[in-house]
């Protein structure tokens, strides 16, 4: 809201300079957003809140300043003399929809002379940043920014049938708004309009029509002052993408109780500058004026909620300064709400007024706070532990948008499920709530590649979304992992190591991770299913050509950790370290490619060799000396007795039987 320093001071007994105005209004809840020094005036821009339409005018701002600084507010009153014939000899009014237009008033002034505004009007408008047009248009703008009441002036001689009808638009009706660049719009029937006997002449509360607008030749006018349903005004404004100072004001609510005062002020200003004769009486259509609301507040409740000791008398004075006409009885203040304060309905609304007048700066601060120590919940602990593990493993965390394109999402929807989408109009081509983090990571990876940044490991922990086959909407946490391949012969192992680390963060150091081959997914080939303690938590593998063509086979994983985020980590009991040395034996086997490491370990474990402690992976070799379709797998077997040092002879037997088993079960050939 642009305001002029001098204009505000027009309504105060003692002027306040611009700095003081800005300080006081910031204190009241209207912070200064901009300031421009003009010759003899200062234009200031104050931020408005949606509940305080009454302050989008100079009297409203002056009222706040007066209440906060012990000044007296003068509200200008117009009392134009009505010397003309009865108003209904000039025009008639029909308000068909009082539920949307609680009060419509029309006044007629005849024989006016259109010309420039007097300087005390035009200077004020210029200081606010408006361009003066004519004494009629300027008067309506002046009243809008003085009292906060939007009004409109029609050229009476252009109204078909000399009639004003407040009604809903008819589907297909045409309307040409005022404005140099305005084009005709078609109404769809949901708009509230002001019409004459034939056609809409204004979008109620939003914009007047060009065909009935005043011109330099206008002689007779109909002055509209009304109030409209804020929801209806907003609807019409949004529907046709037309906003105005009037719609801004009406959307914040205008009380029927303030309409007539503003209309009289406007007629006075017009007659003062344009002459003319005011017809006797007012065309009025709408509901009966409601009574002013009375709201009570317990002074003790106010002190209790704020935690500040403001005595009863001070509370009464504060409300008085704001025009609430308070009366105190038995610790209860009854306040009569002024028309312009349509936001005050409840006790707590008045408590907020006391808070504003007292000021937040004067709220005392406690040096110490009373706290009950809060536990770190398992889900928070687990998320932090996963992030810490991945960062220590060299992964960079990304934060990417939840909305992605249908194309990017397609490959990642679980089979039989559908995607969740926002309404297309707001989506800018990316309407899908991502079913997986992976497409976002891919986008980040490619962006980095375009910038020449390579060799990356990325992760993101975030929500993913889909609608399941049975119609259930699912929102679940996913840990997405994406890794460059550094040494191709390492296969999946770099990512498997990360998964093992994450599993320990989730389920403790004894977490048992299994990774088993599974059918290829639409985005992973080969793909493997990952389980922690026999609970399947997701998949890892190599991104397939369909989603990541020509990238050198990035490794990716999607882990759903929530099953392990609901409980604390299992208690950990320390193991004693072995007291006796182990004997280790290395074996290299040539086996067909189809034989997996897990199969070899299972054979070793299945033999139940005495003192066998572990089977460790050493390396896999493919190439020179190894036939096509085969590989050489090297492993290290460790044997240890708890109570003594083993002899080599004790290990020889089991190793022989193991070699025999490898030969028999998987056709292994023993190397070297």
């Amino acid at each position, binding site marked *: 809201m642009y305001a002029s320093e001098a204009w505000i001071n027009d309504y105060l007994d003692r002027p306040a300079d611009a700095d003081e105005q800005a300080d006081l209004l*910031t*204190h*009241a*809840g209207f*912070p200064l957003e901009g300031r421009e020094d003009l010759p003899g005036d200062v234009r200031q821009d104050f931020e408005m809140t949606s*509940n305080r339409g009454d302050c989008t005018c100079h009297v409203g701002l002056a009222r706040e300043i007066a209440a906060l600084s012990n000044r007296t507010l003068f509200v200008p009153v117009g009392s134009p003399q009505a010397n003309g014939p009865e108003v209904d000899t000039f025009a008639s009014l029909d308000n068909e929809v009082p539920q949307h237009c609680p009060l419509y008033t029309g006044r007629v002034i005849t024989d006016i002379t259109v010309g420039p505004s007097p300087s005390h009007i035009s200077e004020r408008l210029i200081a606010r940043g408006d361009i003066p047009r004519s004494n009629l248009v300027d008067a309506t703008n002046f009243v809008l920014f003085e009292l906060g009441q939007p009004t409109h002036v029609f050229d009476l001689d252009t109204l078909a049938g000399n009639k004003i009808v407040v009604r809903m638009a008819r589907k297909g009706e045409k309307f040409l708004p005022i404005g140099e660049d305005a084009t005709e719009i078609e109404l769809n029937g949901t708009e509230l309009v002001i019409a004459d006997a034939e056609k809409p002449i204004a979008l109620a509360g939003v914009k007047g029509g060009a065909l009935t607008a005043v011109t330099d030749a206008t002689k007779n006018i109909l002055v509209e002052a009304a109030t409209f349903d*804020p929801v209806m005004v907003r609807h019409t404004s*949004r529907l046709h993408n037309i906003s105005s100072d009037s719609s801004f004001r009406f959307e914040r609510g205008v009380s029927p109780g303030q309409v007539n005062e503003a209309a009289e002020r406007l007629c006075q200003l017009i007659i003062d500058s344009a002459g003319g004769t005011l017809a006797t009486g007012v065309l009025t259509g709408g509901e009966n004026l409601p009574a002013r609301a009375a709201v009570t507040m317990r002074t003790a409740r106010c002190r*209790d*909620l*704020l*935690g*500040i000791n403001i005595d009863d008398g001070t509370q009464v004075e504060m409300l008085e300064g704001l025009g609430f006409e308070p009366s105190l009885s038995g610790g209860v203040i009854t306040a009569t709400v002024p028309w312009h304060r349509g936001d005050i309905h409840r006790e*707590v*609304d008045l*408590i*907020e007024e006391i*808070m*504003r007048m007292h000021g*937040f700066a004067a*709220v*005392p*601060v*406690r040096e110490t*706070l009373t*706290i*009950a120590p*809060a536990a770190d919940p398992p*889900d*928070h602990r687990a998320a*932090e532990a996963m*992030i810490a593990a991945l*960062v*220590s493993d060299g992964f*960079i*965390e*990304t*934060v*990417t*948008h*939840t*909305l992605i394109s249908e194309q990017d999402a397609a490959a990642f929807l679980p089979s039989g499920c559908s995607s*969740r*989408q*926002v*309404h297309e*109009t*707001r989506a800018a081509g990316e309407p899908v*709530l991502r079913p997986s983090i992976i497409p976002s990571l891919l986008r*980040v990876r490619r*962006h*980095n590649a375009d*910038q020449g*940044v390579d060799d*990356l*490991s990325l992760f993101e922990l975030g*929500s993913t*979304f889909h*609608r399941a086959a049975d119609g259930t909407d699912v*929102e679940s946490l996913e840990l997405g992992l994406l890794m460059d391949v550094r040494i191709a012969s390492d296969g999946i192992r770099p990512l498997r190591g990360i998964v093992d680390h994450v599993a320990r963060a989730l389920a403790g150091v004894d977490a048992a991770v299994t990774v088993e081959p599974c059918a290829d997914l639409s985005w992973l080939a080969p793909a493997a299913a990952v389980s922690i303690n026999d609970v399947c938590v997701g998949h890892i593998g190599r991104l397939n050509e369909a989603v990541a063509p020509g990238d050198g086979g990035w490794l990716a994983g999607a882990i759903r950790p929530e099953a392990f985020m609901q409980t604390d980590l299992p208690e950990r009991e320390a193991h004693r370290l072995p007291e006796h040395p182990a004997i280790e034996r290395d074996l290299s086997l040539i086996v067909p490619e189809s034989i997996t490491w897990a199969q070899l370990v299972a054979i070793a474990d299945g033999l139940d060799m005495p003192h066998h402690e572990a089977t460790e992976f050493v390396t896999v070799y493919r190439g020179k000396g190894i036939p096509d379709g085969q590989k050489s797998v090297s492993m290290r077997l460790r044997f240890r007795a708890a109570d003594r040092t083993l002899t080599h002879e004790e290990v020889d037997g089991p190793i022989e039987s193991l070699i025999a088993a490898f030969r028999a079960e998987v056709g292994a050939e023993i190397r070297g």
Partner: protein
Amino acid sequence: MLAELDTTQEQALAALAAAGDDAAVEAWRIDWLGSKGQLKQLMARMKDVEPSERPAFGERMNALKQALEDAFKAHKDVGAKGPSGPPMDVTEPGLPAGLGRRHIVSQTVAEIIEVFARMGFEPTTGPEVEDEWHNFTALNVPESHPAREAIDNYYLEGGGILRSQTSTVQIRVLEKTPPPVRIVAAGRVYRPDTHDATHYSMFHQVEGLYVDRGVTMVDLKSTLLGFAHAFFGEEVEVRMRPSFFPFTEPSAEVDMKMRIKGKWQWVELGGCGMVDPNVLEALNIDAEEWTGFAFGLGVERVAMRKHGIADIRWLFENDARFLRQF
């Protein structure tokens, strides 16, 4: 006899000093300290010593043994520190340690949560897809309120909405947990917006809620000031000014005075207020018995101000060179 031991010590130490390489030092150790070495032989002569002199002899023998062992150890340590391996240029740059990075938004969230956790707020979360009850109705936003406009929200096909504020978590928590509650929740929120340097259609908020008997505005101001001092430093200035939110009353904006490009400016931190009685009553909580405060802080704004990040889009491009700066 005792004098002889003194001479022996001198001879032994001289021999050690003369030992040129590791093999010679090892030979010296075997000769003097070994199981059949000279010290053992000297000890065997104890029986030749007059009984009255034996304690003195024993004491001297122990001192000798200690001296030789210390000398041997010292000699070995010096040897270990000597040059070995190829030449080394200590001014060469370090190899990357291979550490990853937490995203700056995630770091900021964690830091804010940690400060509030120290003040007794329990970290929690809530869903990002919400129904209108949690996103609006329960938060005292009536059907006709402009905040519900389709143009300002991501409504979903088939129902639901991407939450426009983390205040939804207040409702989720109070539905499940009777007061007193003191929680802090961070997360993503969504509002359609054209992306530019200061606007993005997704951002993060940290929501705080404290409901108990006798919670007052003084508690709210003290908590927020405590946070600002812990997070930004003791010298930081904080102000509250009246504002309007449907779900709090009285409501306030929290500003912090920061030096930006050499000029002191007030920067918005977020909104706060006393929980509106309508919010409590919608959850069947007696607003006469229980009062509370709530606040919501903008995470990106905090991170951008703290680190001089000029464009919010940099946060979500995820260029590794940018993310590695933090």
